[in-house]
């Protein structure tokens, strides 16, 4: 039997860089596919996108997309994207990076980019650990989970990312998973067309590191996303992620306010009056 391969996304990917480096069962391939599918369905002008990432497994996504792309330093994708977004307002920076990159080493930049309402879309792959360095615990790891640096179980409290980013001032905040591919793709489409700081948290299995250490197979991890995630409208502060409890996914914030580029233009008018 000859396999039918769909090549319609060829123009959206750097085919000469595939196959990618990610492990079998990793959620990152689904995030990448959802992103390029969203660009495809919107017929988005690829010359007007810069895909920016920090460092980590998720950070490698920028290298596979056929847009201008910048693989920067660990944690700093957002200030790079801020420089891009404020100096060329025709460009939409799309940041794809990991939970550790965006909320541990880069946490300060995240709250400030949201506060300033920089026009960009941030897609955060939350795999609950630092995948690339070998599955150590990070700022999103739930309590008691075992990792190479928490061999007796994690003693720290995790961030609730949607609550953090909402209170920092983002104009769009959503949480989806790599099981909910349609909703994820639609959410990315919304973020791509929104003028403002948009944030999508994507729960995504790290099978090799985190999964194996906590005795979850790739299939278990997908099943878990299907069974524990519930689409509901709640206040962001209620959307905590705790082992054994249901996880709320969906849209949390969708508001309009002037972007940083808008207020910079106002400033120019004010300064020359």
């Amino acid at each position, binding site marked *: 039997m000859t396999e039918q391969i769909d090549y319609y996304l060829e123009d959206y990917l750097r085919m000469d860089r595939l196959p990618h480096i990610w492990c079998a069962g990793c959620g990152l391939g689904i995030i990448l596919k959802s992103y390029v599918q969203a660009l495809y369905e919107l017929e988005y002008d690829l010359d007007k996108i810069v895909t920016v990432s920090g460092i980590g497994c998720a950070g490698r996504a920028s*290298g596979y997309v056929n847009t201008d792309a910048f693989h*920067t330093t660990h944690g*700093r994708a957002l200030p790079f994207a*801020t*420089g891009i977004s404020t100096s*060329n307002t025709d*460009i939409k920076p799309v940041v794809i990076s990991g939970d550790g990159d965006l909320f541990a080493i880069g946490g300060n930049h995240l709250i400030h980019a949201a506060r300033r309402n920089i026009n960009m879309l941030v897609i955060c792959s939350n795999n609950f650990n630092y995948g690339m360095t070998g599955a150590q615990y990070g700022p999103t790891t739930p309590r008691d989970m075992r990792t190479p640096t928490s061999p007796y179980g994690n003693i720290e409290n995790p961030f609730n990312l949607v609550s953090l980013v909402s209170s920092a001032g983002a104009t769009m905040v959503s949480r989806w998973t790599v099981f909910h591919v349609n909703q994820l793709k639609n959410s990315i489409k919304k973020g791509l067309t929104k003028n403002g700081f948009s944030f999508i948290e994507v729960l995504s299995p790290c099978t090799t590191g985190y999964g194996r250490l906590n005795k979850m197979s790739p299939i278990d991890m997908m099943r878990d996303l299907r069974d524990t995630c519930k689409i509901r409208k709640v206040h962001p502060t209620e959307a905590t992620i705790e082992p054994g409890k249901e996880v709320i996914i969906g849209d949390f914030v969708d508001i309009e306010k002037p972007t940083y580029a808008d207020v910079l233009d106002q400033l120019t008018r004010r*300064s020359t009056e």
Partner: protein
Amino acid sequence: MSETIPTGKHFVHGDWACAEGAIAAGCGYFAAYPITPATEISEHIASRFPQLGRRFVQFEDEIGAIASVIGASFSGMKAMTATSGPGISLMLENIGLAVMTEVPCVIVNVMRGGPSTGQPTMGAQADVMQCRWGAHGDVEIIALAPQSVQECFDLTVHAFNLSEEYRTPVFLLSDANIGHMFEKLEIPAADEIEIVNRKKPQVFPPDYKPYEADESMVPPMACFGEGYRFYSTGLTHNEMGYPDMSVETQDKLVRRLCDKIRRNKKKINMTEETMTEDCDVLVVTYGVTARSAASAVQMARREGIKAGLLRLITLWPFPDWKIEELADNVKGVVVPEMNYGQLVREVERSVKPTPVEFIPKLGENPPSPDEILERIRRLAK
């Protein structure tokens, strides 16, 4: 003041002149985090940039400031940041990225006393080695050291030009003395200011290889949003910009990044010589300390001692060949600097076996002309 380039005479401080130099050079994006004694640069930019429709962002920290400067430069803007020692310490990782991904930008360090918080309001020249060796890996850097308010303007413009020509970060190493000193500044007419712009690709996007260089060793630079759809990474990369972990690619890339500056060191380097033709004692120094040294050399000549001064305007790449040449016929070399022994090591290496007298000065002002004169006398005997 609303004209882009305020041609004419001004009585201003060095930080003001530096900010105006950036404006004259065409800097369209500036980001910084406040720090003494560099804050006045941000303050002047904050009042001027909005009127000119240019972008000033006061960042949450220096790591973000330099990152955004690199992002802006990659988006086609000329971009600058200004800080002091503690800020440079935070910026170093991203400065290495700018070197690796070949993004032009200007980094101003108005030096103050260290280590750590040190002496925030007082001058020093103790970051000259940090500037050279601070970023990890094999890095070549360009650094210019102004000695006056006028040079804060002129060398800021020149720093932009060098960064554009070589696609590399360029440091302006000023200090609290010059940054806060008031002096006459003369801003030339716009058409008298030389402006260099980055070389652009001459091929169609599908044929563009972002890191392929000709014999100049500097690849033409496409920017984001121009349709080239290129990828840039801080990982070791091949000519396409793609990660490649092979020994050959690492070797080729690092050599090119360093050699594009090393092989042009004579072209890049600028020095100023005073009475060096017949000198028995040579003073080598830079920045604000050169003003003391110039007086000392005059005083020595009045006493009949043949002293001469070599002022380094470009600290990096280091003009070892020039110092070696001048030191050939002298009895000794005096090196005053506002630190506990930094550039003097480079001088010693260049002039061996000629004796070198080092004058360290820790705190606030450069060594006095008398202190320098005394060492000149000692070596002249």
